[in-house]
């Protein structure tokens, strides 16, 4: 009997200890989430995958990085079996960049190495995610959702360009070739 009470007391102490650990993790997640506005990229925008190449935004000539008149930087990328168009994406260092993805075929996904950029690309939707790149240089952006036999060959390069080499052309476009 004495042992049973002792066991019960030990179990209650253990439950309190584990609850303390879970509370610490939740406080950290919720606290930093609210302080830095951390949340998964959630964006609801529809696009017809059958006419993607005819759409105003995702035509071939409009793909890549463009600096708008207000200075905001947007990159438009088509993910298709088994390549990203364009294959090299120039982005400015230390400036917020908005990535917009669409696909005409199957589900793809991307992540950009050494960053928290990570999103799915679904037919019928525009996936949008914004990030800042503090470090100049090349980093890899592979497809991380199995999309077919050529999936492992599907990757792009994100080239983070320092301000001194960042020269948008007259239309505000920047490509890897020019940087």
């Amino acid at each position: 009997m004495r042992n049973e009470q002792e066991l019960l007391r030990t179990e209650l102490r253990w439950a309190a200890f584990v609850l303390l650990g879970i509370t610490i993790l939740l406080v950290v997640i919720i606290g930093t989430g609210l302080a830095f506005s951390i949340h998964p990229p959630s964006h609801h925008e529809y696009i017809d995958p059958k006419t993607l190449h005819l759409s105003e935004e995702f035509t071939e000539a409009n793909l890549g990085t463009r600096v708008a008149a207000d200075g905001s930087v947007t990159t438009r990328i088509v993910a298709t079996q088994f390549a990203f168009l364009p294959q090299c994406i120039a982005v400015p260092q230390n400036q917020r960049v908005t990535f917009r993805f669409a696909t005409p075929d199957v589900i793809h996904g991307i992540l950009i190495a050494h960053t928290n950029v990570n999103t799915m690309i679904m037919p019928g939707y525009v996936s949008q995610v914004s990030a800042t790149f503090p470090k100049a240089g090349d980093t890899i952006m592979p497809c991380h959702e199995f999309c077919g036999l050529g999936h492992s060959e599907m990757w792009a390069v994100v080239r983070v360009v320092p301000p001194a080499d960042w020269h948008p052309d007259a239309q505000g476009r920047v490509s890897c070739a020019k940087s």
Partner: protein
Amino acid sequence: MANRDEPSAAQQPENVSDPVDEQALERVLEVVPRGAIALAGPLVILLVVGWLLVYFLVFLPRGVVG
């Protein structure tokens, strides 16, 4: 034919594979929770500390996306 007057030898101490002495059981039960906590306690602390290190030293420095 077994002789029913002879008691079974199964309960004799030398034939019992794991004789349980009640007092010995009491002694073991007193130690069991301490042993479990000594093992699981530091491991849970290590798990939480490891998670916090990855969160603050890897996840947050990689930048906020939205």
